[in-house]
């Protein structure tokens, strides 16, 4: 019995899923002043309906972190960076950092040590700050400098919290890790207050169920772990929507999903039953971060998109919304009115929709003719966005000859349509693109269902350098000796699996199916001899949904 909660901009939704079936749903207006109030209303309602509080898991998708940033409920962070030589990233950071000496090179070798005197000076400058972030270039190749600075900070100032760059992401990209670490520290206090409030409210109700927090990549984190990585809880709305689609429409066919709402259409590409991930991390408050998420493209076209004639007499659709459709009492013509007149949907008042189309018809044009033109234009806009996303996929940079020859195109075969306006538009889009489509039975709380069944995920990057004789796992802060025997890529992947299991255990999640996200192996040559290898293996617990079989958490 899984309980999922999705705190949206308007409503807080809840759903209980048992063996893959939705057995109970609840909905209440989001209480923006205190999100927990709405959350508890939904939980109480669901307990009442179910007559039980024996949930195996409660998973939360919330806007708590986004709100903290928007409302400025953030701490002043003492940001210390160890950039060494290279590009000056200071202008691309949200705050001015204190720059420390020290450098780790691309092989993970310490080229210069940090200095305690500088850390002391930084503390004087960051007087009164209680949270810190420390980020060093190539710290994922060797966390020792970050660890040394953290140790000094603790000894000198005992701050409430320190986020380490190498702890927030295992992948290369110093700039993104630094920003992730900064935002993580900035929202740490606010999120922890929320987490404490959630825990005490549940305890008061005698609910002993473990609580999980949804992440932007569709995975979940135990609340206790999320306390250290609160920034992971940002942007979970689109993720829970995509998971909702995954839960309701298991399909292995290359697909694209269209979530057509009132104002926008969200497009995702699917392969082997899972949506594609974005190559880069998300942007937070305009700054690039290392936060992973699904690759979504959003276009300003939905059922409520405003339809009008431009001063030149051209029929224009969207992207602005001026209110609801005239068919349901709105003031301006919309795409929905066109769908009603074209008899694609039965919605609101037909006569009022006809009036809407009359407003944009030219002389001699029937309302059906103009409605068809409106829908044509709406479909043009959505198809252009789809084609742009497919082209972007085809233009995805690759670094091997074989991948260039094979190509990265996805030949999509079907469209999955969800959202309020999918029923009218998706058949037309599918026809235009020559694809099949399915519009699953609408679930009113799809996002909450997505949260309910989101599988816990975790990933690690193991990098082994047999010349230097050690390997690192940034997410675990590990730098260990390699065994003296011959060590090959398969060994690296095996070792990564061992550490992934260890990390999963630390985080209180059981290991489901894992997959290698990326692996590469290079010979290191000195003169004309191979002296060793550099191997990278990135392994993850497959994101996805918990099935109806008894699957562990």
């Amino acid at each position, binding site marked *: 019995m899984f309980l999922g909660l999705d705190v949206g901009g308007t409503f807080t939704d809840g759903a209980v899923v048992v063996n893959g079936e939705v057995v109970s749903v609840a909905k209440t207006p989001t209480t923006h002043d205190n999100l927990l109030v709405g959350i508890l209303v939904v939980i109480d309602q669901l307990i009442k309906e179910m007559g039980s509080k024996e949930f195996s898991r409660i998973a939360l998708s919330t806007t708590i972190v986004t709100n903290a940033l928007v409302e400025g409920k953030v701490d002043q962070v003492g940001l210390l960076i160890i950039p060494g*030589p290279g590009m000056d990233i200071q202008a*691309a950071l949200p705050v001015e950092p204190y720059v420390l000496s020290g450098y780790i090179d691309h092989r993970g070798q310490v080229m210069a040590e940090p200095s305690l005197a500088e850390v002391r000076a930084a503390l004087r400058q960051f007087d009164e700050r209680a949270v810190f972030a420390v980020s060093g270039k190539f710290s994922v190749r060797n966390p020792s400098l970050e660890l040394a600075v953290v140790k000094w900070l603790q000894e000198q100032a005992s701050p409430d919290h320190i986020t380490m760059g190498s702890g927030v992401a295992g992948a290369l990209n110093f700039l993104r890790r630094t920003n992730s670490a900064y935002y993580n520290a900035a929202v740490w206090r606010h999120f922890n207050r929320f987490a404490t409030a959630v825990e005490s409210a549940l305890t008061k109700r005698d609910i002993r169920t473990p609580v999980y927090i949804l992440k932007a990549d569709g995975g979940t984190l135990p609340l206790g772990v999320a306390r250290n990585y609160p920034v992971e809880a940002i942007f979970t709305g689109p993720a829970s929507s995509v998971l909702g689609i995954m839960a309701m429409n298991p399909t292995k066919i290359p697909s694209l999903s269209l979530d057509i709402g009132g104002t926008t259409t969200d497009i995702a590409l699917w392969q082997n039953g899972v949506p594609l991930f974005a190559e880069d991390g998300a942007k937070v408050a305009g700054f*690039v971060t290392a936060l992973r998420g699904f690759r979504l493209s959003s276009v300003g076209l939905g059922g409520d998109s405003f339809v009008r004639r431009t001063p030149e007499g051209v029929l224009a659709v969207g992207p602005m919304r001026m209110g609801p459709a005239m068919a349901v009492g709105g003031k301006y013509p919309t795409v929905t009115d066109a769908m009603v007149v074209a008899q694609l949907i039965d919605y609101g008042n037909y006569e009022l929709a006809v009036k809407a189309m009359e407003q944009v018809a030219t002389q001699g044009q029937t309302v059906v003719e103009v409605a068809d033109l409106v829908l044509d234009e709406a479909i043009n806009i959505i198809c252009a966005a789809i084609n742009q996303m497919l082209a972007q996929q085809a233009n995805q*940079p690759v670094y091997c000859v074989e991948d260039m020859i094979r190509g990265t195109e996805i030949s999509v075969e079907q469209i999955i349509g969800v959202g309020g306006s999918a029923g009218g538009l998706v058949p037309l889009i599918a026809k235009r693109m020559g694809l099949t489509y399915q519009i699953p039975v609408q679930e009113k709380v799809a996002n909450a269902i997505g949260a309910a069944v989101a599988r816990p995920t975790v990933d690690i990057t193991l990098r082994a350098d047999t010349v230097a004789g050690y390997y690192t796992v940034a997410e675990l802060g590990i730098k260990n000796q390699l065994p003296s025997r011959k060590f090959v890529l398969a060994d690296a992947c095996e070792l990564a699996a061992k550490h992934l299991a260890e990390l999963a255990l630390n985080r209180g999640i059981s290991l489901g199916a894992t997959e290698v996200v990326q692996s590469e192996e290079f010979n290191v040559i000195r003169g004309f001899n191979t002296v060793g290898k550099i191997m990278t293996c990135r392994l993850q617990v497959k994101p996805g949904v918990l099935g109806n079989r008894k699957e562990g958490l």
Partner: protein
Amino acid sequence: MMDAQKLGLVFFPAFDWAISPSHPEREERLLYTRDQIVEEGLLDMPNIREYKPKLATYRDMERVHIGVPDLASLINNAHLVSAGGALAAADAVMRREVKRAFALVRPPGHHAMRVVHGTRGFCAINIEAIMVEYLRKVYGVRKVAIVDTDVHHGDGTQDVFYHDAETLFISFHQDGRTLYPGTGFTDEMGSPMALGTTMNIPLPPGTTDDGLHQVLDHLIMPVLADFKPDIIINSAGQDNHYSDPLANMAITAQGYARLADKLKADIAVLEGGYSIEDALPYVNVGIILGMAGLDYSKVVEPDIKKCPTQSGEVTRYIKNLITERQGMWAMREGLKRDAVAKAGDFWQRTRNIYYDERGINEQQTEKVRLCPKCGGYLTIGTEANGPGVGYKSAFIAIISREACSHCRQMAIDTVHRAKTQNDFQHYFVQNKYEDILEKI
């Protein structure tokens, strides 16, 4: 709207291609550069945009090359991608999506000559030359300047444009008396109709940033300003670096970054550079920042103390070399007139060309028709011998882009006449006027 300084970066490290497992041109070459670029966050800069290469077509490649017996048997897919990477860089600039572009791709190309019998100096096809002819055919670019900043003389590029007065080829490199390929001396200046548009600047071993920037400020930049090219291409080899294992120069990442910043090439294409751990990550970051108009002052090698200083002797040598080259450039019109008058209707040279990869020896005779009305035509007789390839020969006529009808006919007749004499195995007409390579 285009950012005033936006840089297109075509990055293609060819992680699955090597000449042989321990060859300098191996899978690992750009690994550390990739790590550095990604770790710095360069691809996240709003004024840097990454592009995927396209695949070059045989039509693109045969606008420059004649492969004997054919190009397809001498190259592989990796070459289609690296040449296509240079073309993608050209497209990005010419479509005005970016201000400049850098094709950070491999395999390299600047030792590949017009006629191809195999791989020489790690190069099978000349990716810059293919790009230049593409720029002309697709975008109508005319005057092109190529500045080759690789430590080795760009003998392939020089060969392709030796008779082309609309292409200025400037190469500075470690003196050919001390380094492969052993050419690139000051007296190689172009054939009579193009005299002066090949400029070699052989530098002594031990040249540092100081010497290089003297050459740049007092020779290369003024010559470029004088030539007024429509576009500037940089063959951006990185093996002048003090840590390069194959050469003996003393340029730093700062020296390269400042060069990129001053040169302001429209398109740069990677060439050599084999200090893959100690130089390339820093040099490439420096060049990218320099081309993107970003601050590169903090790009410094961790082992910068190992960089030698320039000797007084080298400084004096470079000063004299600059003076001599300036003089040649000033007198080039007169030199050209004299050379054309001396040559008469035809100019001819015979050379031996060595393909180090498999030990192929080629003997080549070029004969240029100096037409007063047009770009004329060129014939090449080539014979190659080598282990594994045996004997290969071909006779080729190359019709220039703007050849007059008389020259076009003469070129075709010459090939047919040669074929009846049957001295060669293969016969080609590379017809740039009609943009086709025909096997006769």
